[in-house]
């Protein structure tokens, strides 16, 4: 029961959309088509988890944690982008290997789910430049030992599933946000942004 509570709390309180606004642009793009949301969220979860694990290995394998803070701060984007690029290429190759020409239909989802603020933000949160210790918050700390591959994987999973939760909440009210009753100027995207703001306020009120 405790671990279930931990999962639920972590998905809300550590939700990248509601607490850090990370991946909001991707969410807005994804929420336009409800049918593709699960696929996109699943791919983002995959990328977050795999990239976190990969970086965990790099951090300890290559001794990146020992680099001076300023150096880490400057090269972080290059390293993290290279990791996500490698995974992006690998996922595309795997899809092509198993689906052949049909994999072309998934390309744009793979692309959208790899290079975005939610996946990259997960890496910056897990492996901050200004601290020597890693920061697999909530799931990564509670359900696994710190600094382990499992911790990294759980942290990545948590952030990906948090995106799914946010996407489900937004798509659940999407029709109302686009309803005629909503003033024309607010209908759709502006109403969705305000709605995310209200959810964010609710989440922050719990956290504080």
């Amino acid at each position, binding site marked *: 029961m405790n671990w279930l509570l931990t999962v639920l709390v972590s998905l809300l309180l550590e939700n990248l959309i509601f607490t*850090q606004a990370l991946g909001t642009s991707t969410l807005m793009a994804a929420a336009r088509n409800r049918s593709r949301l699960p696929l996109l969220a699943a791919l983002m979860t995959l990328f977050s988890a795999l990239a976190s694990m990969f970086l965990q290995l790099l951090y300890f394998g290559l001794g990146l944690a020992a680099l001076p803070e300023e150096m880490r701060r400057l090269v972080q984007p290059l390293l993290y982008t290279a990791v996500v690029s490698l995974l992006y290429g690998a996922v595309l190759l795997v899809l092509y290997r198993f689906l052949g020409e049909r994999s072309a239909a998934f390309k744009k989802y793979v692309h959208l789910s790899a290079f975005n603020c939610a996946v990259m933000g997960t890496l910056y949160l897990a492996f901050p430049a200004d601290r020597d210790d890693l920061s697999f918050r909530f799931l990564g700390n509670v359900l696994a030992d710190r600094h382990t591959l499992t911790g990294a994987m759980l942290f990545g999973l948590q952030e990906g599933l948090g995106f799914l939760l946010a996407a489900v909440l937004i798509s659940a009210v999407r029709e109302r946000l686009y309803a005629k009753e909503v003033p*024309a100027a607010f209908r759709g995207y502006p*109403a969705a*942004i305000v709605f995310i703001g209200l959810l964010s306020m609710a989440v922050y009120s719990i956290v504080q």
Partner: protein
Amino acid sequence: MRPGTFSVTDGLFRRNAVLSEGMVIAPIVVCCDTLHKALLLSLAFAVITAVSVFVGSFYPKKLPYAVRIMLYALTAAVVYIPAVLLCEYISPETYAALRSMQMPGTDLPGNAFLYLPLLTVNSFIVLHSELYFYRLRRTLMTGALLFHIAGSCLTACVAGCIREVLAYGSLSGHAVDMPLLLRGFAAPWGGFILLGVLCALHRALFAQKQEEA
């Protein structure tokens, strides 16, 4: 962004990337709680995006799409290094404020600084470069890109001004006589709500202009 009905200046107001397309939301919502931070973020965004998209336009189209996307992101990550050093050189105090571990408007430990490196994967670079900018001739692309960047920076600065006045009772560090301070506007949720209102105002304004035309 539809290349069909095109005007180079569209990105400044009519098709503002933030207000009408929902791009680059996160840095504005979280980091732009003061004008100084908005200006610094805008500078980093402008340098990273302009240079990366322009350099990316020279990559051969013969390369597979996936390889091109990786190259765009990696180029932005390289451009990030001089961009962030430039930011630190121009305004060391604001840069230090951005590096602080506090999420604005809350008592929570956070990492507001991560929004600077996250600019390297903004939608201009990894999505709309291929969908929009690279479909234009290079001279037009350069103009459109600069106006789109200017539009996004303008939105960030307007949001930064309003939030600083409402939440801190100051503008660019100078005290403004406010009867009441609304601290929530410095927090991410305040950023979301303000951005939603700005989007609605933008839409209402341009809907009215269209009707008049």
